[in-house]
């Protein structure tokens, strides 16, 4: 039986996202809008081994904070639609900057695959990147590609499909260590947040904790909203208790 999967394509501006998207999906594309905003939403399809894979091209963003419209659109799509997989296109000639977004995706605990694009430019600049070493470090598959020459297309399609059909498919276990000073604040916050059942079932507690420390306005709303709802439910339930922990 044919299965259907959704894959979000994320990357920093100019990493070759659209080129790879076109390479993967060919002519089978259409354009829509994200709900409520005029940001273009490009959707494409490809079939692999009888399964149907839908790619959604997210706006190119340096990061996933909620400061710009593009970032909010990309982040909301990821959080609301929980795609089966996130394909992160990384510009190999600009690895350090590009990996910043990668680590944000890791932190959001999405099942992840990295396309290491612009390998020709990196090589031309004498930058030597070992994809399998990078894959070991990130604990996600890393596929080298040259988007405008279609190189890596077959391997990328196969890897995307393999990640989608894998039931054990999960995000990277890598955790960013923010150092003593921050970790001593993140850890207790993470514990408290993980006790908020309806928050913790949707969002990684550690990610919420980090975003609260950044004073991210959207996450603050999310968390205060969830806590207010819990208090409301507690005050309206006869026994005064339900399954939600009442800790701070």
């Amino acid at each position, binding site marked *: 039986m044919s299965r259907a999967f959704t894959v979000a394509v994320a990357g920093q501006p100019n990493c070759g996202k659209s080129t790879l998207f076109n390479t993967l999906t060919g002519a089978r594309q259409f354009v829509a809008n994200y709900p409520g905003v005029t940001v273009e939403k490009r959707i494409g399809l490809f079939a692999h081994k009888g399964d149907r894979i839908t790619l959604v091209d997210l706006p190119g963003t*340096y*990061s996933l*904070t909620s*400061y*710009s419209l593009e970032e909010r659109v990309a982040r909301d799509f990821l959080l609301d639609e929980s795609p089966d997989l996130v394909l992160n296109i990384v510009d190999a000639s*600009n690895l*350090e*900057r590009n990996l*910043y977004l990668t680590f944000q995706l890791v932190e959001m605990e999405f099942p992840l695959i990295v396309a290491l694009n612009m390998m020709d430019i990196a090589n031309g600049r004498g930058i030597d990147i070992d994809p399998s070493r990078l894959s070991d470090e990130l604990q996600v598959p890393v596929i080298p590609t040259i988007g405008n020459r279609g190189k890596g297309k077959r391997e990328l399609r196969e890897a995307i499909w393999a990640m989608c059909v894998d039931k054990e498919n999960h995000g990277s276990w890598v955790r960013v260590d923010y150092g003593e000073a921050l970790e001593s604040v993140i850890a207790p916050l993470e514990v408290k947040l993980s006790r908020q059942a309806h928050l913790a079932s949707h969002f990684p507690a550690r990610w919420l904790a980090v975003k609260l420390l950044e004073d991210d306005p959207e996450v603050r709303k999310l968390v205060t909203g969830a806590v207010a709802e819990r208090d409301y439910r507690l005050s309206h339930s006869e026994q005064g208790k339900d399954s939600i922990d009442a800790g701070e």
Partner: protein
Amino acid sequence: MTLDELRVGQEARIVDITLSGAIGQRLLDMGFVEGTCVKIVRNAPLIDPIDLLVRGYHVSIRHAEAKGVEVEPL
């Protein structure tokens, strides 16, 4: 001193980002953090943008934004 005061060819280390809000966040996201080295590629008085080399790539920013980046010349 601040980034906008550097001359072409000068290199400096970022000491602090005093910009807040969306622009400050964007610079942080692009790797403008304390300790990072920047090199001025183009900077003409009153003409935006300033062209910089940071972490091996080019960035253009306005003088007004560069004023929000404290640096220490190298």
